[in-house]
């Protein structure tokens, strides 16, 4: 008590309290924001029938009984197996909550067989982009540097040069690519999910797609030659670090110099 009483007029106390309050509010927000809804799963039969059953139960309310689309969801005719696989496997569909756009969620509702069944059903309605084969996704011999050029020409405008994602209009965004698998990259390019335009095999041949996959994989695994990479978000992150850490350290040193020794 005496200790506190003697020091409560110290100007540092106000700063300390402020910091504490900030940390408390931030921590509280993080705790609330990270709460995720838990989901359950079901089982399977022959693929298309099973897919239809699953579709009618889980998708038709928005996409329509005949997958023709409603006011709440676009038509699925012609989107192909690749689109279904991409949307459902990444947890973007079924939609968790209405919002600017569907976000990828770590826990999917459907297991792999069920997703395959759904994809088979939707693909059976109208032809569309199929899922990639293992050969499509093999980018071992791809030209990484050419992939970089293609990435900067076609992808960096939305996903940012380092693949960290970027903002679009009205709260929509191009997601971060750091956890994207080559399969997801391929599916996204051929199907154009949500806001993303389609990069067809005719204008961006499979060879070029593989080069892009190789480059993005390179970005994902890249080391940072210059030290801590600050999220590779560019000058804003650098500026923030400058003021909060570097400049703060220099001010700290100046204060230390100014304090009389005991």
């Amino acid at each position, binding site marked *: 008590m005496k200790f506190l009483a003697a020091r409560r007029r110290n100007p540092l106390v106000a700063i300390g309290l402020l910091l504490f309050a900030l940390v408390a509010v931030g921590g509280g927000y993080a705790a609330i924001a990270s709460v995720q809804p838990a989901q359950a799963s079901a089982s399977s039969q022959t693929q298309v029938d099973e897919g239809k059953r699953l579709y009618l139960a889980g998708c038709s309310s928005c996409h329509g009984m005949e997958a023709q689309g409603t006011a709440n969801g676009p038509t699925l005719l012609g989107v192909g197996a690749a689109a279904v696989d991409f949307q459902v496997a990444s947890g973007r569909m079924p939609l968790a909550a209405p919002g600017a756009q569907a976000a990828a969620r770590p826990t999917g509702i459907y297991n792999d067989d069920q997703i395959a069944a759904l994809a088979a059903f939707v693909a059976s309605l109208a032809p569309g982009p199929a899922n990639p084969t293992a050969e499509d996704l093999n980018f071992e011999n791809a030209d990484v540097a*050419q992939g970089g*050029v*293609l990435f900067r*020409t*076609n992808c960096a*405008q*939305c996903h940012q040069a380092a693949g960290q994602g*970027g903002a*679009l*209009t009205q709260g*929509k965004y*191009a997601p971060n690519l750091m956890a994207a698998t080559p399969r997801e990259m391929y599916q996204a390019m051929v199907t*154009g999910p*949500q*806001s*993303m*335009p*389609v*990069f*067809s095999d*005719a*204008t*961006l*041949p499979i060879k*070029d797609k593989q080069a892009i996959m190789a480059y993005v994989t390179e970005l994902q695994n*890249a*080391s*940072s*030659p*210059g*030290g*801590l*990479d600050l999220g590779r978000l560019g000058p804003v992150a650098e500026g923030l670090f400058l003021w909060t850490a570097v400049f703060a350290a220099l001010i700290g040193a100046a204060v*230390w*110099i100014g304090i*009389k*020794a*005991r």
Partner: protein
Amino acid sequence: MTDLNPHDGHGSQQAKLGHSPVADVPHVLRVTDTDPKAARRAERQVASMFVLSMVLVVAFVVAYWTIDKSTNVYIPVFGEVGLMTIVLGLTSGLSILLIGAGAIQWAKKLMPDVEVVQMSHELVSPEDATAEAAANYERGKEESGFARFKIIRRSLIGAMALFPIPLVFLLRDLWSSPVSGTLTPDEILSKTIWKKGERIVVDATYQPIKPEDLPVGGLVSAVPASMNEVQEAEGNLNARGKAAIILIRMDPSEIVSQQGDGWDYQGILAYSKICTHVGCPIALYEQRTHHLLCPCHQSTFDLANSGNVVFGPAARNMPQLPIGVDSEGYLVAMDDFNQPIGPSFWERG
């Protein structure tokens, strides 16, 4: 303690309201002032900082010779990082930092910490100096006759005014018009290398495009087929900076308006890629809303509606390129843009 009329070290000041009262603050002795052991400890502390600094310089040299510059190392929090830069930075940084820390510790612990008072001198010059300066000036003015010789004075002012003009003229050839001085900047800015029949090819791969290659919702960053030759001939990226376009395809029923009748080809639209605000390239195309967003200043254009501005600081719509197909069925431009692309300029009108 309520003594408001004390003295200062140099005497004479009487405390007045609005002036800081001059008072003695008791000088508190430091541990190093009273305890010789503590003083010796501080001495050792300072010296060891300097010694450690030397050691780190040696470490720097060793690291410079031994570490391969492509070696990576995993450090918690930092992740996978280049070893060389980190070690060189740590050793050189700490060695320099320790010199500073040692010097300051020395000053704080071992040098006298009694504040001294120095009276400041008035900045204003003494009166005789001012008078002498004025007299010198008057004498100079008189002797030169600056005031008397009106013609000399005026002609000198005129000469001084004109003298920088050659310097300004010399800047003229910072740029000379490529076509023997006939094209003015605004004429150059108003034209691109697009012309009727120029094939549209995919940027970076230079592959020509057929309409059926582009699905609805598709996007292609494209350039004129002659881009590479022009670029090589001119030796710069100027043509690319103006001719870059994006091709998009939407359901023809979704097109609300275009900048010219039938400028699309079966729902395929070509727009300039250069923002009309300050010239950033834009291809952030949202295929659902048909909005095009500039990553630099967030100008947003509605490509389904003549490329009109729907948000942000850009004042003009994105210029549209009229397109069609040639005899082989490849997409071609039907003409150049009908307005200058990119940011506005004075002569643009």
